[in-house]
């Protein structure tokens, strides 16, 4: 029984956190942010069923997210006009999931016949095609304006109306928890294991009785189902869906989330979705260069931490499993490296912001404020300071990195040397 309790602990803790969060962060901004993160977690986990679990790199998974969103908006509007059977808003995401599943089965039949580059190119093709369609078929998708709705249909169970944002938050939190659990359990089924096997070696599975095409198709369809649920939640949360939600930009964003969070672990996409959306929504108001920073972060992770953030954490798992005290010697070398990294990053950000300010004539602001200090990009002082920080930081990174690596090597060797127990 203790093992069962141990297995349930993360889920109970997660549920408790979801319930408690709106009481800790009470502002309207935080609530919208958390709602959006909740549905993006579902989307990112669905995407990782392809990338991390099944070895399929898709550049067009927003298609299933977005189409489910469009459908949800239309359905809600049709309910108002009493043209379709009433479905409570609580269950609307399931409808979105079925829409995702439908298109996943349909398009997946074509795209999953091949893996690798061919699959990636086909997914990109469908992504562009559907985006183009949403702009062309104005009667259905209403072009660049997109379509909107009102999510308040009336009272549901316990007098919930989904008028207040807090009720929508709990709707999303509930669906997020259920979907996360479902997708976690899916990784532990025969389908889940064979999906991993196809990722590792698609040719070999053919000789143990499996069609790798069929497995990819199944994984694709199930993934589209969850992407559809996320899309419907988006529609309910924002009450608007436009071509951005099906576009390659949205597909790229979920790819970034999963990669930066770490595709090799189950929690990676959760970390990635949370971090990236948090950064996006807080930084877009502060800097115009947000997309540039996102790109640099992505490249940095791919080059230096291919396992993503979750990979960085799980690298240390054997150490604290063996003995938590073995982590102590890591503290100093890691902090040194981190300090160097921060100095370098802050310097680079300063330089980039000043460059942006000088090259962008669109800026309405007349003064450039970096780190709370007014910095004149037309004088040499700030340039020298930021360049010095970036250069010194880069130098310090080179100096401190080997120390951090060798500290980890020592710790992992110590951890492996002692018997498990």
């Amino acid at each position, binding site marked *: 029984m203790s093992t069962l309790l141990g297995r349930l602990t993360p889920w109970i803790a997660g549920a408790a956190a979801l319930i408690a969060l709106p009481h800790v962060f009470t502002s309207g901004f935080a609530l919208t942010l958390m709602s959006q993160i909740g549905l993006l977690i579902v989307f990112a986990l669905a995407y990782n069923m392809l990338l991390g679990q099944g070895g399929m790199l898709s550049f067009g998974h927003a298609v299933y997210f977005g189409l489910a969103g469009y459908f949800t908006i239309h359905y809600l509007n049709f309910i108002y006009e009493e043209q379709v059977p009433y479905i409570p808003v609580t269950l609307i995401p399931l409808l979105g999931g079925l829409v995702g599943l439908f298109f996943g089965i349909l398009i997946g039949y074509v795209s999953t016949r091949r893996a690798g580059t061919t699959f990636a190119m086909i997914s990109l093709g469908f992504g562009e095609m559907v985006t183009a369609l949403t702009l062309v078929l104005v009667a259905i998708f209403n072009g660049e304006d997109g379509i909107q709705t009102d999510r308040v249909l009336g009272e549901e169970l316990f007098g919930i109306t989904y008028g207040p944002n807090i009720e929508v938050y709990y709707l999303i939190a509930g669906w997020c928890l259920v979907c996360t659990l479902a997708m976690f359990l899916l990784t532990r*089924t*025969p389908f889940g294991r064979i999906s991993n*096997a196809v990722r*590792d070696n698609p040719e*070999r599975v053919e*000789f*143990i*009785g499996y069609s790798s095409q069929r497995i990819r198709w199944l994984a694709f369809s199930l993934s589209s189902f969850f992407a559809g649920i996320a899309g419907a939640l988006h529609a309910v949360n924002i009450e608007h869906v436009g071509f951005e939600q099906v576009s390659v930009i949205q597909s790229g964003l979920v790819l970034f989330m999963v990669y930066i969070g770490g595709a090799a672990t189950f929690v990676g996409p959760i970390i990635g979705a949370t971090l990236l959306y948090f950064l996006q929504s807080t930084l877009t108001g502060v800097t115009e260069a947000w997309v540039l920073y996102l790109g640099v972060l992505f490249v940095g992770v791919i080059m230096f931490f291919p396992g993503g953030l979750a990979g960085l954490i799980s690298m240390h798992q054997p150490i604290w499993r063996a003995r938590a005290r073995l982590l102590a010697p890591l503290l100093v070398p890691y902090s040194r490296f981190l300090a160097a990294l921060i100095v370098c990053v802050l310097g680079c950000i300063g330089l980039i912001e000043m460059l942006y300010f000088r090259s962008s004539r669109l800026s309405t602001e007349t003064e450039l404020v970096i780190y709370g200090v007014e910095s004149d990009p037309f004088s040499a002082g700030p340039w020298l300071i930021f360049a010095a920080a970036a250069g010194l930081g880069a130098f310090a990174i080179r100096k401190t990195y080997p120390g951090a690596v060798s500290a980890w090597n020592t710790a992992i060797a110590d951890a492996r040397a002692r018997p498990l127990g």
Partner: protein
Amino acid sequence: MSSALTLAGLRKSFGAAEIIRGVDLAVEDGERHAIIGPNGAGKSTLYNLISGRFPPSAGRIHLYDTDITGKKAFDINRLGLTRSFQVTNIFARLSVLDNVRCGCLYALGHRYAWWKLVGRLQDVNEQTASILRDIGLWEKRELPAGLLSYADQRALELGIAIAGGANVILLDEPTAGMSHSEVEQAVSLIRRISEGKTLVIVEHDMGVVFDLADRISVLVYGEIIATGTPGEIRASTAVQEAYLGTGAS
């Protein structure tokens, strides 16, 4: 008398090059049949035709009474034919246990199930455990397969192949690259796992071949020039000329 595997007039060309040039062969039910031949004789190609990796250009292949010519690899596997590979072909990021487990799943009827938990499948757990003990990898079951030593990966390769309990087993150079003591272990393992089944084995190590095989076929330039018991093959002058040469003892 029934044949487990029957090849009739089998041919395969890649472009202008004909690799398999009319192979007729009947492997009896329950025998251990070795196929030997010099490098480039077409042994691996023959395996690829039988196991459905690619279709033959001409001829028929029967598994017992079923015509499997041109069928897909997974269909042939479901009919009870399994194979191993000359170059280790495992699921590198999965654990050793999961590698073997994946080999069991379809054969035990769990197919593409996404509604049952893999850890709760009693039949799969038992079969996986028994195979892991058989191939001597039970202690290493939690390791990612890619981290195993070469000999262990070869053993795992065998384990995946036999996990489904197929009746006809095709092994492609199972002892290639092994040390002398490892070869001995591998041979006794192969003997055990092929008990009561039909085994076809491609092998370069003549010690292994003459030790293990009930009958031997010699493949030279895409044709079978002789089939017989180890004694007959050893005595055949045609075989000695074409293949064994000075190596014959």
